[in-house]
């Protein structure tokens, strides 16, 4: 196994490059921002999906909740109440720089907290279910949330809402700010999650994945661990959602906030492609899938979804455990052969 130190060195080299790239390729800065977003989405999905073996199709819920809660706080924190005759979807709030960043920070945190509360409540209800039953139960979550959001006038209902405009007087452009913000946040997420997976908590999640009956009979309160894991994922996912809402500048319940067919599916596919249940797998999967998606879109417009589908099929057929899972398995195989030889 590669030690943390070696890994960290690779990470620092990667980061040095990442920090400079937007200066060299300013036209690609939004695409690069999304790569960091995708890494966060895949990492958070893997907490339950990979490490605990509980496939969730409903994590997009936390993404959208973070996005909406943050947007509402940003809109209302420094401006007087809504004019009831105005159409919510057309309200554009202009804030000065300090107001913008304070409301962004408060909104993001509020979104994350609301998402965690939701995860605890929902988790207590449905995480007692095992495996597939839980997966089926989560299928409707994102869709239900989109329907509900479409009916609330306060957040613009079906027409969506607009996030505050980035203050123009700053030297740092909006694109650069969000690029570095997401880069920093992805790094924090990565290191925190790695620490979690190497801790007692992480091993408890793995134990649930491998044999939940055994974990229970050994006195581990499995449901509580699953809820805790989901809540941690929800916290980070909601922060990512809050940021994405601001990057896009416009929030729509079906197409953006609770968009199952895009963000909701991507986070699962990326984690599985890279190798679920590993820390590097989701990172790798996010980079591969998002780069491929953008490349196909640029050069194969019209056939881009076909090409992406083909890529997924190829990886699933040849690397069923993900790119990283494939190498991990080979390594373990050679390890066990070596130790058997050593014994004989």
């Amino acid at each position, binding site marked *: 196994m590669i030690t943390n130190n070696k890994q960290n060195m690779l990470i620092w080299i990667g980061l040095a490059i990442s920090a400079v790239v937007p200066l060299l390729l300013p036209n690609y800065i939004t695409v690069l921002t999304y790569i960091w977003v995708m890494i966060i989405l895949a990492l958070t999905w893997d907490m339950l999906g990979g490490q605990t073996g509980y496939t969730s199709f409903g994590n997009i819920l936390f993404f959208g909740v973070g996005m909406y809660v943050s947007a509402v706080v940003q809109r209302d924190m420094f401006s007087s109440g809504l004019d009831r005759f105005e159409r919510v979807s057309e309200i554009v709030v202009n804030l000065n720089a300090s107001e913008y960043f304070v409301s962004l920070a408060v909104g993001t945190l509020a979104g994350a907290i609301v998402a965690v509360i939701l995860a605890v409540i929902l988790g207590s209800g449905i995480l007692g279910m095992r495996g597939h039953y839980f997966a089926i139960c989560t299928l409707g979550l994102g869709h239900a949330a989109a329907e509900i959001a479409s009916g609330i006038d306060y957040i613009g209902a079906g027409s969506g809402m607009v996030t505050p405009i980035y203050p123009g007087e700053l030297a740092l452009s909006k694109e650069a700010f969000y690029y570095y913000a997401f880069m920093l946040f992805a790094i924090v997420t990565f290191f925190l999650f790695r*620490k*979690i997976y*190497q*801790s*007692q*908590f992480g*091993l*408890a999640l*793995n*134990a649930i*994945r*491998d*044999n939940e*009956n*055994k*974990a*229970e*009979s*050994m*006195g*581990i*309160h*499995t449901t509580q661990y699953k809820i805790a894991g989901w809540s941690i994922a929800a916290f980070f996912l909601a922060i990512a959602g809050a940021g994405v809402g601001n990057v896009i500048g416009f929030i729509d319940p079906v197409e953006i906030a609770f968009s199952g067919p895009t963000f909701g599916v991507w986070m699962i596919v990326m984690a599985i492609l890279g190798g679920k*249940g590993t820390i590097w797998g989701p990172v790798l999967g996010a980079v591969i899938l998002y780069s491929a998606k953008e490349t196909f879109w640029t050069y194969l417009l019209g056939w881009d979804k076909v090409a992406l589908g083909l890529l997924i099929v190829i990886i699933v057929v040849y690397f069923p455990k993900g790119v990283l899972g494939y190498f991990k398995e080979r390594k*373990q195989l050679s*390890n*066990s052969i070596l*130790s058997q030889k050593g*014994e004989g």
Partner: protein
Amino acid sequence: MDQLNVKSVDKAYGGVIANHDVSLTVPEGKIVGIIGPNGSGKTTLFNSIVGHHPIDSGEIHFNGKEISSLTIPQIARLGMLRTFQQTHIYGKMTCVQNMQISSDIDANWKRIFNPFSKEVDEMVDELLAFVGLYKKRFLLAGDLSFGQQKLLEFAMALMKKPTILLLDEPTAGVNPTLINGLIDRLRQVNEEKGITLLVIEHNMRVIMNLAEHIYCLANGTMLADGKPDDIQNDQRVIDAYLGN
């Protein structure tokens, strides 16, 4: 003192009566055996005791406390652990990880996001050496042979420092050489660590050597109980096994 006291427990699955009016007592620090033909309700009884399913009627007392309404983790945390007939281990984790996670992680939940403490790691090494798996400690548990997995499961149970262990056929599927080692170790934990053992076993040689008191189940009811010699010569037991 009786550590475990099962009083006239009934358990039925639909129309099938798996246990009827079953009672037994396990004194502290002793080794007690349960025998009986296949399908006589031994594992059902274990499942009832550890809280795997609710019982239909009767009482189960552990150290004087009624436990028949508690959940599996709650009972486990009282110090009663069971091992399974088919091994239950965490296959995709190494032996060391299997052992670490079997330590009492909730006892110090403030450290839950820290790695395992040095004391835990020392205990892991010691117990893996005790069951003879130290050399294989970095292998995935799923890659071990069946017998080795049984040893690992036994060692995992010891990590929790139980006061009583319920072993469901510890020697089934284990090769004869390993069986002798296993019996020695069972005796050793009983004598040195003072752990009470309640053992389901089909291997008569093993159970007659090991247990001080034996209960015999047949068709879900308690057929006989007594010292190994008495059980061996009990005509009802012999009939039950030979199918008369």
